[in-house]
């Protein structure tokens, strides 16, 4: 009799605990205030985040191609010359976001194989104002930058304005002389391919410090709409 009483008690406690758990997982219902008039409807804006790269004011698709029109038609690429290469990034979403760009520059052989023996710093670009360089996360091949201000929906900021190749690639390696009046000059970087890749990512501004740490692994300080590295 006593045993049956205790078993019943345990079952009652277990049931009560189950009920508590179910009650706790039920979220409170939320109702959005809507206004409807007979004349027009006012739709609610949904949370939306998006980012877009532009090259010379033309939108570039995800995985798209850069540098296709860097050298004017009929000309050959001139070493040392600064070419106009305007790369911008825009907030194509609705909510404000903080933006990071990672710029990769490297050399490949003619067959597409990356050549790690060549100096990526000879591929030069000019960053526009407003970008904070994260030296701790950067290497000569991979440079990390954060825009110092949150970008609102529809906003576009400049990233790169010029691209060039350092004259050091022309440091002569060797010359051959056929003894008949012809000199042929050979360069280490001859036949190599200059590669540039731009990654852009955005993170919400709400709880931005935690969001940036989670998404980018960076410790930053956000004050209002401004971002700085810790």
């Amino acid at each position, binding site marked *: 009799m006593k*045993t049956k009483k*205790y*078993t019943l008690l*345990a079952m009652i*406690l*277990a049931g009560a*605990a189950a009920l*508590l*758990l179910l009650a*706790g*997982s039920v979220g409170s219902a939320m109702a959005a205030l809507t206004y409807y008039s007979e004349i027009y409807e006012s739709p609610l804006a949904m*949370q939306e*985040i998006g*980012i*877009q*790269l532009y090259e010379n004011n033309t939108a*570039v698709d*995800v995985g*798209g*191609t*850069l*540098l296709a029109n*860097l*050298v004017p038609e009929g000309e*050959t*690429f*001139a*070493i*040392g*010359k600064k070419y106009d290469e305007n790369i911008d990034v825009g907030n194509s979403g609705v909510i404000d976001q903080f933006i990071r760009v990672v710029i*990769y520059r490297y050399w490949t052989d003619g067959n597409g194989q990356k050549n790690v023996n060549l100096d990526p710093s000879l591929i030069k670009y000019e960053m526009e104002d407003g970008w904070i360089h994260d030296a701790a996360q950067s290497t000569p091949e991979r440079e990390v930058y954060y825009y110092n201000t949150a970008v609102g929906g529809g906003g576009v900021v400049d990233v790169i304005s010029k691209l060039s190749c350092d*004259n050091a*690639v*022309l440091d*002569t390696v060797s010359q051959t*002389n056929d003894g008949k*009046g*012809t*000199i*042929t*000059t050979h*360069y280490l*970087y*001859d*036949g*190599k*391919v*200059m*590669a*540039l*890749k*731009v990654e*852009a*990512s*955005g*993170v*919400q501004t709400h*709880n931005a410090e*935690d*969001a940036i740490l989670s998404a980018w692994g960076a410790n930053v300080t956000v004050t209002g709409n401004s971002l700085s590295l810790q």
Partner: protein
Amino acid sequence: MKKSKWILPALLAASLVIAASIPSAMAYFTTYTEASGVLPLDLGNETTIEEPTVTDWTKHVVVTNTGDADVFIRARAFAASAYKLTYSGTGWSDGGDGYWYYADPIAPAGETQELLIAIGDIPTEVAEGDEFNVAVVYESVPVRYDENGAAFADWTQTVHTVQD
């Protein structure tokens, strides 16, 4: 035996209470895009000096760019000290270091204007078998550009010269 019947419900109750204390997971709004591009470099250059013609004790030197990149050219001649060499030519100027420099870069398939090297103090009486040599050498370097896009030559990078 009787006490063992307590254990399962008690464990179930305890696990339910602990599960209720697990916080809900949170996800942040993020977005991403990327693009890339490549540009091949064609740097090798080749230049050729034409066999200078000689008229009236003057060598006519022309250098041709037979490569794929623009180059700057400089040239000079060597002869025994008994002979005086005088240079002239449209587009050529004395660099003060023995070389004469062609002012404009030479595009692929392009050539310099003639560099005239006049040989002076030729002996008036020459014995049979007497001979002398005037060697013309030239050097080429690829065109480089400064920040403002102005072309310039870096003559410290030359390695060999050609003798004719």
